[in-house]
């Protein structure tokens, strides 16, 4: 990988959003597009497992500048002093990031990469801003059908007696066996009693419902409509899913509710049977980042063949002043 440059940028209203701009070295041919890397949950801009840093350096090494930043209230960006709705604020932050990116690099076409909540935000931005020419969503929206959910349950039931690891992830099993192992342990007993009362002491899994605050119900039809909008605009849409929900994926199972919609056949789609949701294994990170780089370069090639220049954003707002604070580092 060739040397890349990294610099701190502050932007947005009152310069309260913080990001790191990663740019190719002077001798690297530029690809003509930039990549915006989004927060995942409340993880700061380095991404889960520092994967955004690795992605930015890898893409910049291939001629694609990257901006990874913290949205309002996350990481090192300040909380908003305005009264905007949470989602409106996030969209405003992402558009400010594109404005900054454009002002810093002169680029006007961008691809977006988001994991989990970042994937949902990537879709929101792609719909709202015409500068977005590609969006890669890893473990974003899913719309499996009942058959797929049933298959998942059956697979887990069948594996349950023989797979101790699976049993450990099942809360009731953990609580009951914990009490049987230590019948005099007051905490273990309390957990079982709480189960019997129908009020378990600990959540079954990590809940991300906090991020759904203020969200309207978003169904398969909405998703299909949004995908179609992007495709009609010529946006390259890539949907990826990990093995969190099921170990196999046949005929785009995780989007089964969209079957019959023309958009489903037109998006890129990849299921990773051996990559987990949070990219825990280094090998999984490497393979995902390789796929990201390959896709971004393909988008770049396609954009070079397309003479039309996108508008600066559907709302037609002028880009803000750069407000860049250069502070370069060789990585």
């Amino acid at each position, binding site marked *: 990988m060739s040397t890349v440059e990294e610099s701190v940028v502050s932007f947005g209203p009152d310069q309260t959003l913080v990001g790191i701009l990663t740019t190719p070295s002077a001798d690297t041919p530029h690809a003509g597009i930039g990549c915006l890397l989004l927060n995942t949950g*409340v993880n700061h801009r*380095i991404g889960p497992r520092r994967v955004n840093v690795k992605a930015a350096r890898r893409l910049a090494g291939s001629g694609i500048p990257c901006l990874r930043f913290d949205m309002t209230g996350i990481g*090192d960006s300040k909380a908003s002093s305005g009264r905007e709705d949470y989602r409106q604020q996030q969209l405003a932050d992402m558009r400010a990031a594109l404005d900054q990116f454009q002002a810093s690099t002169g680029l006007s076409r961008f691809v977006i990469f988001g994991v989990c909540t970042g994937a949902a935000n990537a879709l929101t931005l792609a719909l709202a801003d015409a500068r977005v020419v590609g969006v890669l969503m890893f473990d974003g929206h899913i719309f499996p059908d009942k058959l797929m959910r049933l298959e998942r349950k059956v697979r887990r039931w069948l594996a349950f007696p023989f797979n101790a*690891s*699976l049993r450990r992830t099942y809360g009731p099993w953990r609580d009951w066996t914990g009490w049987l192992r230590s019948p005099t342990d007051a905490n273990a007993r309390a957990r079982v009693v709480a189960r019997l009362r129908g009020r378990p002491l600990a959540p079954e899994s990590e809940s991300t419902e906090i991020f759904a605050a203020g969200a309207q119900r978003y169904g398969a039809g909405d998703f299909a409509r949004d995908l179609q909008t992007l495709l009609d605009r010529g946006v390259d849409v890539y949907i990826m899913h990990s093995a969190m929900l099921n170990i196999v994926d046949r005929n785009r199972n995780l989007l089964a509710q969209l079957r019959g919609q023309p958009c489903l056949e037109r998006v890129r789609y990849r299921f990773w049977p051996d990559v*987990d949701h949070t990219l*825990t294994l280094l090998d999984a990170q490497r393979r995902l980042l390789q796929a990201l780089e390959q896709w971004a370069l393909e988008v770049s090639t396609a954009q070079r063949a397309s003479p039309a220049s996108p508008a600066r954003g559907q709302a037609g707002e002028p880009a803000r002043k750069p407000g860049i604070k250069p502070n370069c580092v*060789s990585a």
Partner: protein
Amino acid sequence: MNPFYFGPPAHRLFGVFHPPAAGGPARAGVVLSPPFGHEAIRVHRFYRLLADRLARQGIGVLRFDYYGTGDSGGLDDDADLAVWASDLCEAHRELQRRIGGLPTSWFAARLGAAVALAAAPQSFPRVHRMLVWDPVVDGSAYLAELGVAQVDELDLAHCIPDPAWRRAIERDPQALSTESLGFSIPPRLREQILALQPSVAAPALPCPLVVVAREDDAASRQWCAAMGAAHPNAVLSRQAFEHSLIWTSNPFANNEVAPASALQYMLNELS
């Protein structure tokens, strides 16, 4: 709050300087030394809030990432405790430069404590005081703990987890210790971590040390005894402190991102 890069061009470090609030002169300084890997991500918010609150009390604070971590230059495979100790000294000098040479203390959590203990004798100007929180003093147990966390995470993140992962760490607690929760543990770092033992004292420190650890943390208790025996003149105190932060958890809503009691405790100790 001022994010910036510092250090020589071939070894750039990322830092965030929190100047004293209200623009007045600082009355002291604190450098926050982060933990390793996922734990550093886990406490990012805690460190930011602690820095903000210390700054409100007139203290200049520098948070930073070691080389090969966070926003700093370098790769995962560059991880090296000796290099990180030099990084901490560099961050110390950077803060000193910004606050005019005022007494500067260090706060370090988990493996960051091992870095701080190694760096303290090299610090110039001399570090004023050190506060370490749940320090890693038993490297073997720490790697085993990371291995369990890694398997727990993999189990949760797969529809049908592979039982071989857990069997591997049950046979050998170090079996998966070449990486942890998405971060590489290169051989040199692994050796350095394994060299940390509760019976082995750190070099003599140039300043008072406060160890904050859970009441039942026998390893830190043993290590404090070893330090006292090796350095009879050392100014060392151990404080028992219980908290709800799970170092290896993801920063989701079901485990407090920055427990208020811990924040207040550290704030009281450092201000």
